[in-house]
């Protein structure tokens, strides 16, 4: 037990960079502003949390009037477990098999199950942080508004603490079995990608399955029958039902039965994972380390052919960015895959009739006002192209290799432009795939799609520059796992928040221009001019600050 706790403690400190943060803040007194920024960020999130509580209160009242109050818990638990499943599989795969500390951990006098248990503990803490804001407010609103007794609160805490255990342990079992059975040695990137795609497709079909195959009458029946909604969403994953019924009933029947079921199954699956770890973990890991590389010498002619092209510096940078991004699975998933997959998922949702938000979106687009149609479509295209981590992790992705960018004889301004072109290319792909979805799935005419795409492309240039500036201000270069550079990078979240803020400012500008009497082509042209001006200014500023920032970043 002491060995497990030591492993867990060290893994947690490594995961959250606690030692480095302590060194920087206390010893170097360097990143004090970061602590302040974090506190400000938390303060900034507070109004949103308050709003979320209010919305949940409203939802509770509506559900209660239909006799469906428990559905609030089921929905929150299901949403939390969905998030855990989506993020968890990546965490499990990279933590169990692809993290760089494995070679060190394997050499320690610790049993395989202890190593896996420590890694599981770290993923668990990460997952708590991922779902806390989604799940806990729902538990609080339900507990307060349903006037639950005191015994509800420890039970709610228990449900929250056990929430990630079943989906994560199942992911772990699946991953370990596959790593043992499939010879992944040289194909680990492919394996990671294929696994992720299977997961995303699975989630998509699960979502479609919730509503897609049911008639409106059937859906209505679910909404009107007592507890029907909870059953509808929970039938895909029974632990959601067990947990919500346990909270609804508490210690009176049938609560204890659900308590035993929920806790018992969680413990059983966790034990199964540890047992499997003892049998399978090291064998899969050793298989991965046995990398038989077949080297092939190139002929002199082939070698000369590979060196035949001399590229300009900005093209070399662009090509480097493209290759590094698309050959690192986690970067690829957050770049090109996301700008194609997200619109594709939207396409299938709209075609299947699932997803109330898409229906609402269709209504807005079908309102007959072409200007509104164009502007909303442009916002959708911008979301497809820019709400990903490509631009906002462009410097962070270089990690410990950033020294190369500092020593090469290419002006930072030109390096930044090469990087901009790469990020913008990904944004353009997103705008194009979004445009196709709007045309093919929503039936939007070309007369709306084309100006909307043009507006999105110009606004996309602006947001790409803004996102890059966020990362340039404080790139995360000390990562050991690429996941930290993009998925656990604060810059990506901050940039997304800024993007949403700027889209909102554009919306305010639209209202202002309409009040000023502009409409139709003149209004769209004015918006386009504003976006072009913003893009030009942001690009100029980005290029201008590049030299100063490159000099200050200590690689």
């Amino acid at each position, binding site marked *: 037990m002491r060995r497990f706790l030591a492993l867990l403690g060290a893994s947690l400190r490594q995961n959250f960079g606690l030692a480095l943060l302590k060194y920087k803040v206390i010893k170097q007194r360097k990143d004090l502003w970061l602590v302040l920024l974090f506190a400000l960020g938390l303060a900034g999130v507070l109004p949103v949390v308050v709003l979320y509580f209010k919305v949940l209160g409203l939802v509770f009242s509506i559900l209660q009037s239909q006799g469906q109050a428990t559905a609030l818990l089921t929905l929150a638990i299901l949403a939390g477990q969905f998030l855990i499943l989506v993020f968890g599989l990546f965490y499990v795969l990279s933590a169990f098999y692809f993290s760089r500390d494995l070679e060190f951990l394997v050499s320690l006098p610790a049993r395989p199950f202890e190593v896996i248990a420590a890694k599981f503990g770290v993923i668990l803490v990460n997952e708590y942080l991922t779902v806390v804001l989604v799940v806990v407010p729902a538990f609080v609103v339900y507990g307060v508004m349903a006037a639950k007794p005191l015994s509800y609160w420890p039970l709610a805490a228990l449900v929250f603490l056990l929430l990630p255990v079943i989906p994560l342990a199942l992911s772990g079992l699946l991953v370990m079995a596959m790593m043992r059975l499939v010879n992944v040695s040289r194909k680990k990137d492919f394996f990671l990608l294929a696994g992720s795609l299977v997961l995303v497709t699975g989630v998509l079909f699960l979502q479609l399955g919730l509503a897609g195959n049911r008639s409106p009458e059937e859906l209505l029946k679910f909404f009107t029958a007592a507890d029907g909604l909870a059953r509808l969403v929970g039938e895909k994953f029974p632990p959601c039902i067990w947990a919500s019924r346990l909270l609804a009933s508490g210690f009176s029947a049938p609560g204890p039965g659900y308590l035993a079921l929920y806790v018992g199954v969680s413990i059983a699956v966790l034990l199964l994972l540890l047992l499997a770890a003892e049998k399978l973990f090291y064998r899969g890991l050793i298989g991965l380390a046995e990398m038989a590389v077949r080297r092939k010498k190139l002929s002199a002619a082939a070698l000369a052919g590979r060196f035949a092209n001399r590229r300009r510096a900005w*093209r070399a940078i662009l090509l480097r960015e493209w290759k590094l991004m698309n050959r690192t699975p986690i970067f690829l998933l957050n770049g090109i895959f996301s700008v194609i997959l997200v619109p594709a998922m939207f396409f299938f949702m709209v075609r299947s009739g699932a997803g109330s938000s898409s229906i609402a979106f269709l209504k807005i687009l079908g309102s007959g006002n072409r200007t509104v149609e164009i502007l909303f479509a442009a916002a959708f295209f911008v979301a497809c192209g820019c709400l990903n981590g490509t631009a906002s992790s462009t410097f962070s992705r270089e990690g410990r290799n950033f020294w190369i960018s500092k020593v090469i*004889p290419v002006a930072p301004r030109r390096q930044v432009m090469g990087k901009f072109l790469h990020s913008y290319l990904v944004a353009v792909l997103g705008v194009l795939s979004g445009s196709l979805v709007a045309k093919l799935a929503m039936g939007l005419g070309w007369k709306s799609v084309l100006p909307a795409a043009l507006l999105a492309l110009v606004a996309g240039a602006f947001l790409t520059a803004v996102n890059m500036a966020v990362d340039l201000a404080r790139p995360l270069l000390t990562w050991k796992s690429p996941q930290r550079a993009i998925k656990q990078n604060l810059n990506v979240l901050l940039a997304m928040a800024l993007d949403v803020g700027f889209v909102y400012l554009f919306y305010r500008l639209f209202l202002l221009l309409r009040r000023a009497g502009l409409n139709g082509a003149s209004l769209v042209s004015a918006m386009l001019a504003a976006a072009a001006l913003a893009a030009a200014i942001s690009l100029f500023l980005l290029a201008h600050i590049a030299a100063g920032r490159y000099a200050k970043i200590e690689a």
Partner: protein
Amino acid sequence: MIELRNVCKSYNKGAVRAVDDLTLAVPPGEIFGFLGPNGAGKTTTIKMIVGILAPDTGTIAIEGRDNRREPLACKAVTAYVPDSPEIYERLTGLEYLNFIADVYGVPARERAERAKRWLEVFELASAAADPIQTYSHGMRQKIVLSGALIVEPRVFVLDEPMTGLDPRSAHSLKQAMRAHCDRGGTLFFSTHVMEVAEKFCDRIAIIHRGRLSACGTLDELRRQAGESQSLEKIFLEMTGS
């Protein structure tokens, strides 16, 4: 030609003085060895020379140009190899060499000739088309060295270049560096291997706690410390606390 004048660099807001008033010059044609215990300020000095870190005070000139006022001109004539070969793992060896040749503007024909030569010298030809992530530590070190050599710069700055190299590759590197300096180029390199410094360097500097303890030819260092001492003994004497 590398010139450092009164260079200072501190960390933790002045609490740790990594380099303290360092002044030295490495003329063209000279192999200059930079020695010092761990944490003495060797890597910090090297990083300042190549522009990765900025000195707090003092100036650094490469081929007569200030590396902060004319950074691109200085970088264009300098190739650097770090102590740890951290490079783009997802590129192949060939792609890495092509990238370096592109950003340094090496003409296509010359880069092909040089790449062929160095890949063969370092026995990397059969691995060049594979991703760098499949390379061993030594192979990574060799591909970084090949990237530096493909540029054929006037100034080489190498931080512990022999670490991880097999004896044959280390020998080839030493020969190449000697030839480079004989053609009038400059080599500034750090090492922990006293034997290499003793046999290979024209001049040696010893840095201790950020300050220059000694600088000169091996004979000059011997005279300073007493007759017929080995470099190891001189080093231990000068860096003893």
